């Protein structure tokens, strides 16, 4: 069975977001155990578990922690990336609403391991209810003595600050997030130096995703081996996968890595009209789309890479044949154009050129020659900006052209809304389940 209720195990209890609900199932018992183990053993345990970052890039978590220089005399910082904004990704927000204490306990253990006395959770601004639940959890943890000075008599001090962003997708990029957390415009930094060496306030900093940090207490409780019972050698563990789009039961599915999209579709009740998806994206709008022929591939970092895409945030968006590929891609490029921070010319100018050209296709006024121009534009942006936003913007179109060339050719004469009735794609349409 690939369903793995770990982070989600008790969300059906009315108080799972409170310290009482969390402690009922052993919450915060790992803080003392972590102090017993000591920082180096904690880092080794997370290394041994094989846990990889859950924010999209999949970098090995223990290795990232290990990059923080020790005994350097500088303050160290933990920064949790809770700026969930990737189109398709909606797993950290539910996690913080229903199980915020797992994140808080994870912050304590991680900060102790990397020898940080300050931790920050950078939450996007547009979700006040998440701020409430998370801030309430932090207050409860302070009151219970899990945060603050000399935690549980260990001599370890930790201040945990819940920080608010203000509406900028780019701040999900770790170096832009750090600039934003320093009270500046959220623009990416050139790497190296990496944050582990020069991050927040130019000091060694670990930046990890919410779900990554929330995994930590469960690994400490159950041991490194426990995590490896799921997934593959290169992709161990379980994952919150939000399944959205034209499925009967969209939602957050917590499953073993290596679960297939076909299995996820079965959990989600199948496609709303039956049949198979027209296209789907395994991990947000920034990864190349796949089609029905890819439904049986294991959702792992390595299998997605082999298929020419990426696992990304592992939050599949699924579309049926009512959807115009041209319209979908055009709207995503509007997004990247809007969110480009403007620092790097290829991304700033290129996203505008791609979006403008795509709008002609959506209106049925593209030309075949422009398809080649779009491919060239994407190739010119790829790899030529400081951060991954440029790459992400250059990603949707080429895959969509590969899989649906005839639809792009049709967009040289027929507007998308004529080729595909927009009402049919909505969940308001007849036969849609709500």
């Amino acid at each position: 069975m690939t369903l793995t209720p770990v982070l989600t195990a008790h969300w059906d209890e009315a108080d799972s977001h409170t310290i009482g609900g969390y402690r009922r199932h052993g919450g915060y018992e790992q803080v003392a155990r972590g102090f017993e183990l000591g920082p180096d053993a904690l880092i080794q345990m997370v290394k041994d578990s094989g846990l990889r970052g859950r924010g999209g890039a999949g970098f090995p978590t223990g290795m990232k922690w290990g990059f923080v220089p020790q005994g350097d005399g500088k303050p160290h910082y933990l920064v949790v990336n809770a700026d969930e904004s990737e189109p398709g990704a909606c797993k950290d927000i539910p996690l913080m609403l229903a199980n915020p204490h797992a994140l808080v306990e994870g912050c304590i253990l991680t900060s102790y391991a990397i020898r940080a006395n300050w931790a920050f959770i950078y939450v996007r601004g547009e979700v006040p209810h998440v701020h409430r639940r998370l801030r309430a959890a932090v207050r409860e943890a302070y009151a219970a003595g899990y945060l603050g000075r000399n935690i549980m008599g260990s001599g370890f001090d930790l201040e945990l600050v819940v920080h608010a962003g203000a509406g900028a997708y780019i701040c999900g990029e770790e170096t832009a997030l750090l600039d934003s957390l320093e009270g500046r415009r959220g623009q990416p930094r050139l790497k190296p130096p990496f944050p582990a060496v020069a991050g927040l306030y130019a000091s060694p900093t670990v930046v990890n995703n919410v779900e990554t940090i929330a995994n930590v207490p469960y690994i400490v409780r159950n041991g490194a081996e426990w995590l490896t019972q799921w997934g593959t050698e290169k992709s161990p563990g379980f994952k919150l996968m939000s399944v959205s789009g034209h499925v009967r039961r969209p939602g957050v599915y917590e499953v073993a890595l290596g679960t297939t999209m076909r299995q996820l579709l079965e959990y989600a009740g199948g496609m709303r009209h039956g049949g198979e998806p027209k296209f789907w994206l395994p991990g947000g709008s920034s990864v190349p789309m796949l089609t029905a022929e890819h439904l049986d591939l294991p959702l792992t970092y390595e299998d997605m890479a082999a298929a020419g895409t990426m696992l990304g945030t592992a939050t599949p968006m699924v579309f049926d044949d009512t959807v115009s590929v041209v319209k979908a891609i055009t709207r995503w490029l509007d997004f990247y154009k809007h969110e480009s921070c403007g620092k790097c010319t290829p991304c700033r100018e290129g996203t505008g050129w791609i979006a403008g050209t795509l709008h002609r296709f959506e209106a049925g006024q593209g030309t075949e020659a422009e398809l080649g121009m779009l491919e060239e534009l994407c190739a010119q942006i790829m790899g030529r900006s400081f951060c991954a936003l440029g790459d992400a913007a250059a990603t949707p179109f080429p895959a969509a052209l590969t899989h649906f060339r005839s639809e792009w050719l049709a967009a040289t004469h027929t507007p998308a809304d004529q080729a595909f009735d927009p009402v049919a794609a909505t969940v308001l349409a007849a036969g849609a389940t709500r």
Partner: protein
Amino acid sequence: MSISEQARAELAELAGRYPVARSALLPMLHLVQSEEGYVSPEGIAACAETLGLSTAEVAAVSTFYTMYKRRPAGKHHVGVCTNTLCALLGGDAVWEAVRERAGADHDEVSPDGLFDLERIECQAACTHAPVMTVDWEFFDRTTPAQAVEVLDRLAAGEEVRSTRGPVVRGFRAAERTISGIDDDGLAGDGPNADDLMLATLHAAAERGVGPADGGPAAPSAAVEGRPQA
């Protein structure tokens, strides 16, 4: 308007929460919006004074982020996600209905001053598409008719509750909450987790799969609302 002494003290309090005071600038600008209804010149000056920055430095930051308004906001902020997935599943239709009802367009305030409209980007609620927000609280799986009804009820002064949070209280109150300056007491409002967030547990119950977290099971008396297999 001028920034009150109390507000100045609160701005300083936010600045005091960080090892480097400037880190508080984004929360401080949220607090300015709750006081002023937008990022006013006086608010920029107060932040600059608190942090020892120039007003140009503060303005340069505030103009980078879409949540900060450069003109007085309407009473309620109304956002409709028109990123691809929400748009296709009905967000475009919801946006058209909201625009028509409010008599305003993107980044405009309705003539009655009640509604501040914005086409928003992904709200991290794709499972709940199409998504509308009022004062940044979720209105999940919204239809055009439901969206208009929400605006009608707000216009009539009725209480309107978010699908996953509290009763909406206006743009300024939301900005105060987001700034984190104090506790609004509403963390327990709304469902602990809604049906779509419980998808794992529903699927697990149907298949006889139990918790995999390795922790102690709850005494059954403590469990409320566990979904039936």
